[in-house]
């Protein structure tokens, strides 16, 4: 139950920050994808099922607020959360480099899906342009941001683990 509340708060904070504050720290028109960092981190720390659910609900939130087609973001974040959940098998509490790699791969997947659904289907075929101008900068910036954000999320997760253990 506690875990559920913490995740809900995390999702809402990430979403609000992403849509309001992050525009001020965007570099060259690109901003880091905080929601993706959250989804991949939780999937990596907790496994497939939490990753899947957090992805689904944060995606749904984005959908309801910004999407023209409800369900698309939820689908993308959910799949990424599920896939990243497989990485939970090699999870270690004080490894801070490996999750960055997963977050990078996750964001690459996300931007690619996004391109396919929203641009390729409207016959915008210039993939190299979109890759260099939007995907690559976003991936790099997201990885850079995740150095801090992941540490924070990992700290919260460890704290929560200890708290729950004490109660038992």
């Amino acid at each position, binding site marked *: 139950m506690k875990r559920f509340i913490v995740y809900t708060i995390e999702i809402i904070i990430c979403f609000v920050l992403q849509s309001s504050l992050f525009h001020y720290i965007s570099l060259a028109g690109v901003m880091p994808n905080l929601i993706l960092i959250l989804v991949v981190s939780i999937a990596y720390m907790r496994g497939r099922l939490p990753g899947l659910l957090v992805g689904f609900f944060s995606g749904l939130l984005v959908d309801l607020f910004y999407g023209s087609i*409800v369900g698309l973001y939820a689908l993308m974040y959910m799949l990424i959360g599920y896939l990243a959940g497989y990485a939970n098998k090699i999870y270690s509490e004080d490894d801070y480099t490996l999750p960055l790699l997963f977050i990078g791969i996750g964001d690459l997947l996300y931007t690619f899906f996004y391109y396919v659904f929203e*641009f390729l289907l409207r016959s915008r075929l210039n993939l190299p342009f979109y890759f260099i101008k939007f995907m690559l900068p976003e991936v790099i910036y997201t990885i850079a941001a995740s150095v801090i954000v992941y540490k924070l999320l990992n700290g919260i997760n460890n704290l929560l683990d200890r708290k729950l253990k004490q109660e038992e």
Partner: protein
Amino acid sequence: MRRRTKIHINPKYVLFACLAICIGLVILSFRYEERLAPVKSAVGYVITPMQKGINSIGSFISDKLDNLKNISELLEENEQLKEQVNLLSYENKLLRQDKYELNELRELYELDQKYLDYPKVAARIISKDTNNWYTFFTIDKGTRDGLAVDMNVLAGNGLAGIIVEAHYNYSKVRAIIDDKSNVHGMFLKTSDTCIVRGDLELMEQGRIRVEMISKDADIYDGYEVVTSHISPKFLQGILIGYVSDIRLDSSNMTKTAYLTPAVDFEHLEEVLIITELKEQLID
């Protein structure tokens, strides 16, 4: 003691269930778009106040940072501007005289001042889309303040976009530089119509595309494009921007050009909404 009931569900089944929900939602939102509007409104009702708060903190911080950075530049600029003020105030005086004259002439000819007479409402931009690909933004006024879908949004003296969703206390605006935006335009001087289309590839050059100009149109760089009389949603005569790089298409039938919008989308903070809708044709 804590009760612990561990239920083991294979994540695969949850995945399939959620997949089905997602696909269902996609189909649903394609077929019954208007039914989902109340749900969206409810979510917005909770989230919008938070965004407003965070947004004010963000703009406060970035303002402060900018202040520090620019102080030396500003001092220098101040000097130059003072000179300019003197010059301009002189020019202004002359212009005001001209305007007085113009007003009188207008009254004489009983000309309508279309553009100035539309009822307008000011609003503040509180958030932008969560990804880097699109240019939607959210403003802090909604149906409560008399806004509705398809109302035109201005910024400064040009067209900024159109309201695509109006909720109780916020509305969503699609900018004209968005990849999905299409506006019927018209050259002010020659009355040739064209279509102004947003393009992500041109966005960072600060330009958008103008298409479907008649090949006989007698137009040159720097001509003004305004919203056209045949546009179904945009009111007539709002400035969109200025054309450049006019080229004949390979089909030899139409011309294509680029357009620099009159609005600076990079630094957009406040907008004006015309609360009058273009009258629809009803058959």
